[in-house]
C-alpha cells in the first residue's frame, strides 16, 4: 500500500481539527452556572448522535457510488432510506401499534437492520450487479425505485388505522433531539464497525471502482464484493435513519450525501478509498455539528436545519458541477 500523499494527510488532519474545534464549541458555548454536568451530558449525547449519523451518511454514500460505478447516485436518491421508512410502515401495519411498541428498542433495531440488509442486497444487487453498463437505465431505475418506496409507504400509511399512522410518523421524521440514548451506543458501535470494515476493504474498493471487467481480471471476486459493500451500505443507512429519521424534509433529494461526496472528491482529488472514506465522514460531521450549533444557539431554530443544508449544500453542489469538479 503506497503511502498517502502529504496533501491528503493535511486535508484529513485539517478536517479533524475543525471537527474537534466545532465539537468543543458545541459542548462549552454558553455553558452557564446552572447544572453543568446535566447540560454537558445532554449535549454530549446529541453530539455523539450527530457525528454517528454524519459518518454513516458520508461513508455509505461513498460506498454506494463505488458499487454503482457512478458519482451522482446516493443511497437516498436510489430510495434506500425510503425503503427503511416503508419497512417501518409495513411492520406497524402487520403487528399493530401496540405490538410495534411492545418490542424493546435494541432487538427491534437489530432486526430492522438485518431485514434491511437482506432486502437491499436482493434488490440493489440484482439491479446494480448485472449491468452498470447501461448507466442511464440504472439511474432511471434508482429514481423510480425511490418514488416507488415513498409512495408505497404513503399508500400503506393511508390504509392503516390513524393511531398506527401516528406511530409511524413519530418513528420516521428526522429529529436530532429524538436521538435516543438507549439506541445510541448500539447504533454508534454498529456504525463504527461498518466504517472499520469499509476502511479494511479500502484497497479492494479501489479495485472495484475500476469497473467489473478490469476488477475481475485483476483477481477481485466482484459479485461477492458488491454484496458485501451493499450490506455495509444497508447497515450504515439503517443506523443513521433509525437514530434520527430520514434527513430529507420532502421530495426525492435528500442530497446531503451527494453534497458530502461532491465536496470530498473536490477537496481530496483522489480515487483512493482510504482517503475518501474518512474525508467524507469528517466533512459530513463538520457540516452537521457546525450547522446544528449555528441553528440551535445562534438563530434558535432547530427545525430549519435540514432546509438550510439542502439550500446551501445544493448551491455548492451546483457550483462544483459547473466548475467541472464533479464527473
Amino acid at each position: 500500500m503506497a503511502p498517502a500523499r502529504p496533501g491528503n494527510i493535511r486535508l484529513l488532519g485539517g478536517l479533524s481539527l475543525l471537527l474537534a474545534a466545532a465539537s468543543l464549541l458545541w459542548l462549552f458555548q454558553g455553558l452557564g452556572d446552572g447544572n453543568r454536568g446535566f447540560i454537558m451530558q445532554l449535549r454530549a449525547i446529541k453530539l455523539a448522535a450527530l457525528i454517528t449519523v454524519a459518518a454513516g451518511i458520508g461513508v455509505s454514500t461513498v460506498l454506494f457510488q463505488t458499487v454503482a460505478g457512478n458519482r451522482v447516485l446516493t443511497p437516498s436518491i436510489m430510495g434506500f432510506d425510503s425503503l427503511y421508512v416503508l419497512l417501518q410502515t409495513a411492520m406497524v401495519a402487520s403487528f399493530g401499534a401496540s405490538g410495534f411498541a411492545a418490542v424493546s428498542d435494541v432487538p427491534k433495531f437489530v432486526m430492522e437492520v438485518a431485514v434491511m440488509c437482506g432486502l437491499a442486497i436482493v434488490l440493489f444487487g440484482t439491479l446494480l450487479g448485472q449491468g452498470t453498463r447501461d448507466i442511464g437505465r440504472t439511474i432511471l431505475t434508482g429514481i423510480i425505485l425511490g418514488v416507488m418506496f415513498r409512495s408505497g409507504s404513503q399508500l400503506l400509511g393511508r390504509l392503516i388505522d390513524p393511531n398506527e399512522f401516528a406511530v409511524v410518523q413519530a418513528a420516521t421524521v428526522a429529529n436530532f433531539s429524538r436521538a435516543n440514548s438507549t439506541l445510541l451506543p448500539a447504533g454508534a458501535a454498529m456504525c463504527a464497525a461498518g466504517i472499520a470494515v469499509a476502511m479494511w476493504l479500502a484497497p479492494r474498493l479501489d479495485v472495484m471502482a475500476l469497473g467489473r471487467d478490469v476488477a475481475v481480471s485483476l483477481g477481485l471476486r466482484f459479485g461477492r464484493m458488491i454484496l458485501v459493500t451493499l450490506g455495509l451500505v444497508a447497515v450504515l443507512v439503517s443506523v443513521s435513519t433509525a437514530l434520527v429519521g430520514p434527513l430529507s424534509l420532502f421530495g426525492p433529494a435528500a442530497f446531503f450525501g451527494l453534497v458530502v461526496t461532491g465536496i470530498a472528491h473536490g477537496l481530496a482529488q483522489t480515487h483512493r478509498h482510504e482517503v475518501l472514506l474518512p474525508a467524507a465522514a469528517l466533512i459530513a460531521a463538520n457540516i452537521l455539528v457546525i450547522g446544528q450549533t449555528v441553528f440551535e444557539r445562534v438563530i434558535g431554530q432547530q427545525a430549519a436545519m435540514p432546509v438550510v443544508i439542502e439550500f446551501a449544500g445544493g448551491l455548492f453542489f451546483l457550483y462544483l458541477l459547473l466548475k467541472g469538479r464533479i464527473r
Partner: protein
Amino acid sequence: MSRPLGATIAVLVPLILASLMTGAASIHVLDALSDPWTMLVLMESRLPRTLAVLLTGAALSVAGLLLQALVRNRFVGPDTVGTAESAALGLLVITLMAPASPIWVKICVASLSAMAGTALFVALIRRLPPKEIMLVPITGIVLSGVVGSVVVYIAWQEDLMQYITTWLMVGEFSGVVAGRYEMLWFAGAAAGLAWFAADRFVILSLGEEVATGLGLGTKGVMRFGLAVVAVVSAMVVTTVGMIPFVGLVVPNIVSRVMGDNLRRSLPMVAAAGAALLLSCDLLGRLLRYPFEIPVGTVMGFIGSIIFLYLLYRRPARV
C-alpha cells in the same frame, strides 16, 4: 389514427364512464336526464373532477415530452427540474406581498416564476459537458431541492407550512368541483398549442447547431417550449398540487412504442397521460371507498412498477 392511439382511446372511454359513476353518492349516469339531483351531482362534481384529471394528465405528459426534447434528455420531467417548486415560490411571494390580489394575478406570477426557474435549469445544463447525460437529471433534482428549500424556509418563517404542503406534496383531486378547476383548461390549451410547433421541437432536439443549420430560430422555439412547460406546471400546481411522475414516465413509454416523431406521438402522449392519471385516480377512490387516497400516491406506486417492467422488458433505447 394510429393503432396505439385508437387502443388508448378505447381504454379511456370506459374509464371516463367509471369515473362519472364513482363517488360517495351513488348515482346512475343514465338517470341524469330524468332526475335533477343526479344531474346536479354530475355537473357540479363528477364531470369537473373527471375533466380536471384528464386535462392534468394530458397537459403534464405533453409538458414532459417538450421538456425532454428541449434539453435532449429522457430522464427529466416537469416535476424534477424545479418548475413546480418555482411556481410555488412565485405563488408564495405574491401571497405574502399582495394577499388580496385576484387569482389570475397570482397565476400569472406563478407562471412567470415557473418559467424563470425552468429557464435557469436550461441555462445551467448548457454549461455541463454534453456527454454526461446523467448529470442533467441530477442537476434538475438538486435545483428543485434548492428552490424547494427556499419555499419551505419562507413558509416556515411566515407560518404558512400548511398552505404550501397542498402544492408541494402529493397532488389530489378530491377538492375539485365546478368553479375550482377551470384554470386547468389553460394548461390543456397550452399543451394543445404545442402540437402546432411539434416539428420544430423535433428539429430542436437534434441539437442547436443542426437546428440552426436547418434554418430554425432556436431561441423562439426554446422560449415557446419553456412557456408551455411553465404554464402547464403553474396551473397544475395552483389548482390540484404537483402530480409527480406522469410527465417523466408517459413520454418515455410512448417513445419506446412509437419513436420520436412528435407530431404523431403527441396525441398519443396526451391520451396515455390522461388514461394513466384517470385510472390511478379511480383506484385511489376505490381502494378505501368512500374515503380517498391521493392520486399522486397511487400513481407513484403503480406507475413505477409499470415503468420498471417496461424498462427491463425491452432492449434499452433511451
